[in-house]
């Protein structure tokens, strides 16, 4: 299996301190991979490192046969990785449609196919496309944020805690959308606080602790692992 993304022994952090130490992970084509772990384990940091948002001091990052270690975020976007931050991930004072348009900013030519694709995934958004994004509910905002990131037809979507602060009903909906997105040919790497639910839905998972790899495996295997359960799943 050739990996779409492969992070090899990555060490790095913000400024001087190394938050990640020798972290390795891979994401295959059309696969949903989740990173879980206790607070402060470096989950979000690991994801941000893919997007070129931190100083890398060791190891390398390969994406689709390119070495993207140390690339600037705008170059990474163009290469086919889009990132949805956990907070402030929409343009509040712009309509849903304008949010999507900004997502497709780098694309030259017609955006109508990209709009169709996003509106097919999120029919709710199509009905309300003239609504200001800032007036939407949390779950709908998350859809706008994901929609914005999908406008450039990325091969890999990075989601930072997409279900944070959402009700269980919306959480299920977001997970279902992730599956739908994957089925259109996009791999997803996400960070999750809700470890149990996330491992149950993802194809594979990584458990990070204190900035290091701790466990990896399919979601079901990790859920069945006693050590993982004791570590943070609450027994």
């Amino acid at each position: 299996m050739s990996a779409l993304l492969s992070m090899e022994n990555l060490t790095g952090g913000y400024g001087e301190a190394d938050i990640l130490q020798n972290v390795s992970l891979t994401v295959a084509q059309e696969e949903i991979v989740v990173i879980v772990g206790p607070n402060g384990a470096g989950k979000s940091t690991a994801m941000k490192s893919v997007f070129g948002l931190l100083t890398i001091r060791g190891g390398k990052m390969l994406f689709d046969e390119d070495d993207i270690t140390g690339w600037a975020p705008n170059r990474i976007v163009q290469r086919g990785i889009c990132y949805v931050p956990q907070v402030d991930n929409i343009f509040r004072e712009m309509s849903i449609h304008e949010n999507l348009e900004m997502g497709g900013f780098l694309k030259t030519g017609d955006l109508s196919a990209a709009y169709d694709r996003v509106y097919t995934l999120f029919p709710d958004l199509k009905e309300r496309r003239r609504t200001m994004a800032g007036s939407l509910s949390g779950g709908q905002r998350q859809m706008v944020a994901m929609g914005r990131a999908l406008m450039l037809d990325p091969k890999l979507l990075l989601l930072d805690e997409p279900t944070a602060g959402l009700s269980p009903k919306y959480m299920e909906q977001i997970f279902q959308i992730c599956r739908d997105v994957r089925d259109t040919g996009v791999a997803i790497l996400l960070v999750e606080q809700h470890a149990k639910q996330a491992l149950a839905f993802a194809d594979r998972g990584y458990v990070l602790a204190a900035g290091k790899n701790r466990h990896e495996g399919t979601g079901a295997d990790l859920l069945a692992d006693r050590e993982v359960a004791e570590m943070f799943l609450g027994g």
Partner: protein
Amino acid sequence: MDLFELVNFYVVPGIVLGSIYALGAVGITLIFAILRYAHLAHGDLATLGAFIALAAVTGMGVSPYVALPIAVLGTAAVAVGIDKVFYEHLRERPKIVTVMASLGIALMIRAVVQVVWGVDTQTYSRGIVRPEDYFGIRIRDREIYTLLAMVVLVGVLQLFLTRSKWGKAMRAMSDNPNLALLSGIDNKKVVMLTWVIAGGLCAASGFFLGINTELKAMMGWHMLLPMFAAAILGGVGRVEGAVLGGLIVGIAEELSVLVIPSEYKAAMAFAILLFMLLVRPTGLLKGKVL
């Protein structure tokens, strides 16, 4: 005093002055929203615009209204140049550094104006223009043009911001700069565009102040406080707010003469600014909190 007197001597001049403030305030609000600092050279940039138009009038013998577009383009180019030479190098530093730098730029522009055009007051055309009588309300042509130009320029700007790709990119940068960068929006182009628009509007503001009163080296500097008051009154980042704020400040300044000595007219803007920051710092149309 009857109603016509009130309108003719206070409201009409207030609307004209307000339109002039509005043109400047829109630029201030855009710079605030996108670059996130107070641009203190804004008034003197308006002075420069007014004098560039004067140079075109005296040098090329064209009418003032032909000189206006020349001044708009010239001032826009100067604004972009100032950003490239000075402000761009301060982008990563605390914003207060750029604010202070812009004060220095203000002094530089004023000095250049004084060296090139002198310190005496000048006018675009000599002679007294008699106002036309519209059913008892007396308005000069240039006063109509001032309001009209403000409405058209701001209208075109609004269309640009809501309909065009780069206008939306400007709004996106103002709304959420990090996400704009994540979406691949070119920060440098947006900044340049902001200066072109702000510089052009500055020139229009200075030009209309010049054509309705007279040109002098301090004309723009004296507009700085009312323009800031207008931008904050309307809500920072709100173009339509800056227009509303400009008109309110302009009319309030003119009406204030009814109750306080005219020497204190300028204090009106300061009072409005202070009141607004105390009572509703987000402005009438809910802008950004500074």
